[in-house]
């Protein structure tokens, strides 16, 4: 058993201190915002450390949760995320499965077609014009379709499908199964892990997607949550006054507390789900990076 030298002990100590500082650095900003949002705005306006709320108040949250545009944004984002994730995960899987089969004629060609989209793309303008030409502006589809299927996720799923033993397929085929049956009855049930991984990546992407709204949605009632959030962050006073809430007359809430409450509420879904699914993300990132 080799003992650490003094120099190594020093290194470990510094490393641990550094990591602890890093953790604080990553957590503190969000903690600050949560505490501020729970504070009485008059007391909070003086600024400060915010380890605990200054004058506890839930008013900001009450204001935001009842807020019409905030709720509408939530609704839009929820619908887009659920539908988009299901749609994209399923069709990514079908595509990935097909090209995972070595016996597929022109497999290399199709794989290249898919991979090429990672190297080169039309860009903002042609994609925008396409969505416009398809008549999808201001529709849910404009938020669901353009980001849906990507080469990266296809590759991740493909790696997984390639790893499924051929014997399983052969056994099913001997029982008279077609490729479709094999896919739905044998492969998919076995693929829960990769479906969950890719699905979660997609869900996060959809939930966080802000730019699609900016590009394709002009009707404010159809804005996704991130766009509503940005609006609130940039000018809470205006947004709220259009709903009859005048911040100037408020005692407990202010532009700042309201903004922060919105941020907290918008982040909650991700934060709540995160600890449980972290391992899926890490695994997915690994597979994608190594194979891709």
């Amino acid at each position: 058993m080799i003992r650490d030298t003094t120099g190594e002990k020093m290194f470990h100590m510094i490393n641990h201190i550094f990591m602890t500082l890093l953790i604080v650095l990553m957590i503190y900003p969000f903690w600050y915002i949560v505490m501020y949002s729970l504070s009485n705005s008059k007391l909070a306006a003086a600024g400060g450390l915010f380890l605990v709320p200054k004058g506890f108040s839930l008013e900001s949250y009450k204001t935001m949760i009842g807020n019409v545009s905030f709720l509408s944004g939530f609704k839009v984002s929820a619908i887009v995320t659920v539908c988009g994730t299901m749609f994209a995960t399923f069709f990514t899987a079908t595509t990935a499965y097909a090209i995972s089969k070595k016996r597929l004629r022109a497999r290399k060609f199709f794989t290249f077609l898919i991979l090429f989209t990672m190297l080169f793309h039309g860009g903002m303008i042609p994609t925008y014009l396409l969505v416009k030409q398809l008549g999808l502006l201001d529709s849910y589809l404009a938020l669901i379709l353009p980001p849906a299927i990507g080469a990266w996720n296809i590759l991740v799923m493909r790696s997984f499908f390639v790893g499924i033993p051929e014997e399983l397929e052969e056994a099913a085929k001997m029982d008279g199964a077609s490729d479709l049956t094999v896919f739905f009855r044998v492969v998919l049930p076995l693929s829960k892990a990769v479906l969950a991984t890719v699905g979660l990546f997609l869900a996060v992407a959809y939930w966080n997607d802000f730019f699609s709204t900016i590009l394709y949605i002009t009707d404010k009632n159809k804005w996704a949550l991130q766009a509503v959030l940005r609006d609130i962050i940039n000018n809470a006073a205006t947004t709220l006054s259009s709903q009859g809430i005048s911040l100037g007359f408020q005692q407990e809430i202010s532009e700042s507390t309201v903004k922060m409450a919105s941020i907290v509420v918008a982040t909650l879904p991700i934060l709540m789900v995160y600890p449980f699914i972290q391992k899926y993300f890490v695994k997915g990132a690994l597979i994608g990076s190594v194979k891709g």
Partner: protein
Amino acid sequence: MTNGWKSKSKNGSVAGPGLVKDVIRDRYLYLLLLPGLVYLIIFRYVPMYGLVIAFKDYNILMGVMKSPWVGLLQFERLFRGPDFLQILKNTIIISTYKIIWGFPAPIILSLLLNELKNIYFKRFTQTIIYLPHFISWVIFAGIIMIFLNPVDGFVNYVIRTFGGEPVSFLTEPKYFRAILVITDIYKEAGWGTIIYLAAISGVNPSLYEAAVMDGANKFRQMWHITLPSIRPVVIILFILSLGNILEAGFMQIFLLYNPLVMNVGDVIDTYVYRRGIVDASYSLGAAAGLFKSVIALIIIVLANRIVKRFGEDGLW
């Protein structure tokens, strides 16, 4: 194609006898492939074709096909524009800073993480540092703006406590690029450690033991064993970073920039958005986008070739 193919195509090529038979045999596979393929054609390849409007004067009423050709006129307009040089400069400078500071960050972080002996502390740290990657830029930009607020932001609170004058960070050109780089690292460095840690953990432990017996200290071990072992990963990721040099983080900049920092913060994508979408100069925007994509492709191909010439594995 060529002669001498096996009678059953095992390698997924198109040519070779038995094509129709194989297609019929695999018809359900093609069925499964179809929706994704159609999607990619519509949403990825059609826009690629749509880039031709960079060579046209796109008129909405006439559509892509009928709009008149103008050759390189849009590109001339683009390159001769008063801001273009500045925009190109900003894009490259910001990206370069991000590469210089941001590329080593996850590597160093993963080397340090690897040294943590307590597995619970290590896992906890990792959980925390992955988190910013999942926060949307809207939220993160909001947090940044709150913290850097000249009136009641935390950073200025600290400055004032130490007797300094509050600074409006986000509207000062001299701070803007630094803010972009630092916050980008904050958001992504943690997540970036995943792949490096995976590579590091693949290193044969007996190499370390041998080095220790030769009297190597921690830093020598890292320098001579760990780093060279992860070199392939580093190279590939580096090539990809280079290929993205004209990207410069559009979403981040779009959410953080303001008229006061345009001269240092405006990049190609923000320009494309403003002129191409907002001003509806579609052809001009498409030309800028095409310029960006072509350069990115060239860089990646070149970088890949150079790396291979040095004997390393490239991207392909």
